[in-house]
């Protein structure tokens, strides 16, 4: 920890190439914050970050229970990866836009987006903000800087670049953040994003969440065994960082750097967040078929919540009691929210067939009106 330098915010890409191959880490083995990336991190942000991570984990556990109870068909956890979305969100501002994957619930749970609405989306019930049209967890909230999630991998990486180009075209200072998984970097739209980021240098941060697995495929199947994913940026004339994604302080520090760089007009940054997918890919997945059980229980890189907690306790900013209490509070919050959400229906009950025909276009064209009428809804 602490050994990687922190370049100036406007450092030339060519002058910081080694940061694509090393790893930014702030917390050392003893939980101390060390090195240049440890500087200037606001304690309040760290404490709030811990709380948000606890909230995310409480949410994930509760939603898993819902799925096991047959109240939703599908869920995806981000266990072990909480620091990344939560830490990154802490560096963003109102008006910035994320183009997230399905494993970035932490972005939304770090805001005041109503958790009941999130659960209603998962239950596809009568209060589902997306009217039952989307698979559970595919949230959308423009107001909260969370672009509609797509089921198609990689497509949104380039959209983030486009959004940032628009911001630049309008002389705006808002920034965009693209999100992609290690496996999905193989998708061709990853390249589209890098090329366009290279040519137009828009204010975008391109985040690769390298959790080592893509369903059953190890990162090597995406070409990430001997080269790092961050090194993909080396041929595109913009900088890359490789960061310990389970070290909240490193995440927050690197995010701040890249977000500020973008906002001040110095262009895009690619960040590889090194982490580990502790959970199965989704509730439809059984990882025991393809990876040794010990691997996930060993929890490579450590539990990000535990690491931050220990750090904060060592600095007297936190305590075991507050930890226990906070966990209980969020469990209660989520339990209550779940209860409320369930009152609007579960597993699609409450979704209306009428809603099926709306919003395909801004104005319903005659053929859809005809189809709806024929169905009698």
């Amino acid at each position, binding site marked *: 920890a602490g050994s990687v330098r922190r370049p100036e915010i406007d450092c030339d890409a060519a002058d910081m190439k080694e940061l694509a191959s090393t790893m930014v880490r702030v917390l050392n083995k003893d939980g101390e914050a060390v090195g240049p990336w440890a500087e200037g991190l606001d304690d309040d942000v760290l404490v709030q970050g811990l709380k948000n991570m606890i909230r995310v984990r409480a949410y994930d556990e509760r939603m898993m229970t819902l799925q096991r109870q047959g109240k939703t068909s599908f869920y995806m956890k981000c266990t072990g990866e909480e620091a990344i979305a939560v830490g990154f969100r802490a560096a963003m501002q109102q008006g910035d836009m994320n183009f997230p994957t399905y494993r970035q619930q932490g972005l939304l749970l770090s805001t005041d987006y109503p958790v009941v609405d999130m659960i209603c989306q998962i239950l596809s019930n009568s209060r589902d*903000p997306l009217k039952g049209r989307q698979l559970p967890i595919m949230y*959308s*909230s423009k107001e909260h800087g969370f672009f509609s999630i797509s089921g198609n991998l990689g497509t949104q990486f380039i959209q983030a670049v486009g959004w940032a180009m628009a911001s630049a*075209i309008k002389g705006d200072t808002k920034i965009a953040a693209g999100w992609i998984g290690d496996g999905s970097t193989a998708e061709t739209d990853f390249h589209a994003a890098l090329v366009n980021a290279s040519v137009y240098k828009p204010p975008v941060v391109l985040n690769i969440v390298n959790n080592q697995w893509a369903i059953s495929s190890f990162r090597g199947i995406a070409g990430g065994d001997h080269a790092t994913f961050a090194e993909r940026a080396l041929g595109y004339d913009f900088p890359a960082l490789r960061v310990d994604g389970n070290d909240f302080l490193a995440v927050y520090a690197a995010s701040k750097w890249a977000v500020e760089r973008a906002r001040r007009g110095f262009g895009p940054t690619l960040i590889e967040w090194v982490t580990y997918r502790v959970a199965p890919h989704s509730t439809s997945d059984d990882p025991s078929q393809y990876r040794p059980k010990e691997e996930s229980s060993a929890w490579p890189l450590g539990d990000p919540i535990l690491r931050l907690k220990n750090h904060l306790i060592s600095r007297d900013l936190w305590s075991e009691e507050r930890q226990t209490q906070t966990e209980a509070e969020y469990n209660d919050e989520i339990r209550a929210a779940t209860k409320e959400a369930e009152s609007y229906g579960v597993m699609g009950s409450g979704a209306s067939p009428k809603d099926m025909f709306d919003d395909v276009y801004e104005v319903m064209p*005659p053929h859809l009106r005809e189809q709806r009428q024929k169905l009698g809804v």
Partner: protein
Amino acid sequence: MPQMSMIEAIRDAMDVKMGQDDDVVVYGEDVGYFGGVFRCTHGLQKKYGKHRVFDSPINESGIVGTAIGMGAYGLRPCIEIQFADYIYPAYDQIVSEAARLRYRSNKDFTAPITIRTPCGGGIFGGQTHSQSPESLFTHVSGVKTVIPSNPYDAKGLLIASIEDNDPVIFFEPKRLYNGPFDGHHDRPASNWSKHPLGDVPEGHYTVPIGKASVFSEGKDVTILTYGTMVFVAEAAKKETGIDAEIIDLRTLMPLDVDTIVESVKKTGRCMVLHEATLTSGFGAELSAQVQERCFYHLEAPVVRVCGFDTPYPHAQEWDYFPGPARVGRELKAMMEAV
């Protein structure tokens, strides 16, 4: 009124919209400095600056993908895919993203983008500069598909497309860029400057998306067609003397069913005519709808005259192309059907 070619009319539509609305941006391969390989964006960069009119990397997926992002931000991109034959790398972005965005986000985000792309054969361009892939888009819920056949419509429809809040695929029949084309490639080319549809008003006007036009009235048979084939139909009508009613669909999705039904109910006969490959072409949809909606008025089967189910061959271009002779033969045959 100014006389414009289709290229000029298309350029003028963008010019009008860019002048009115700062959120309209224009880009694509060779679109900026050079002004496009067909010159449709010529002069726009000079007028509106490099931030609003620019060159793209050769990456169709990126052209559409960035446009979706810009649309989500609040811009109104009008982008060019250099040839419709090269739209396939962007197909995923169009189908999975642009088309679905409004629906899946419950209107939280939309993609008000216009994708201009030249289509069709007749310029000796071979398999990869001649295709008409419109039916690959009409199957996709959430996009609109527009294809003008003349300068007047081109300008009005392009302005309407840019103003539309849904994604529009705007096909430009490249054989018509410089003049109407009756399908007789062996005769001298004619020019829009001598055609009434080359009269294009200055400034802002729209031709509504979703409305067909009766290009030529008639009572014996209805010909449903669009783009380049409108003028081929007209030529076949003249040459056979069959009193065909030629309907220029102009918009394929949403389709102007009323105009179609009214005409077919009147004539009792219907030909569907397009340049695209027959099987699963848009003609299949037209034929199906006509027989669903006008069944008991039909005196003869709905006939499809289309490109063959082969790639668009280079040397055999004019054998592939459904020219006036083939259309005429089919017209006569269907008038004989009892």
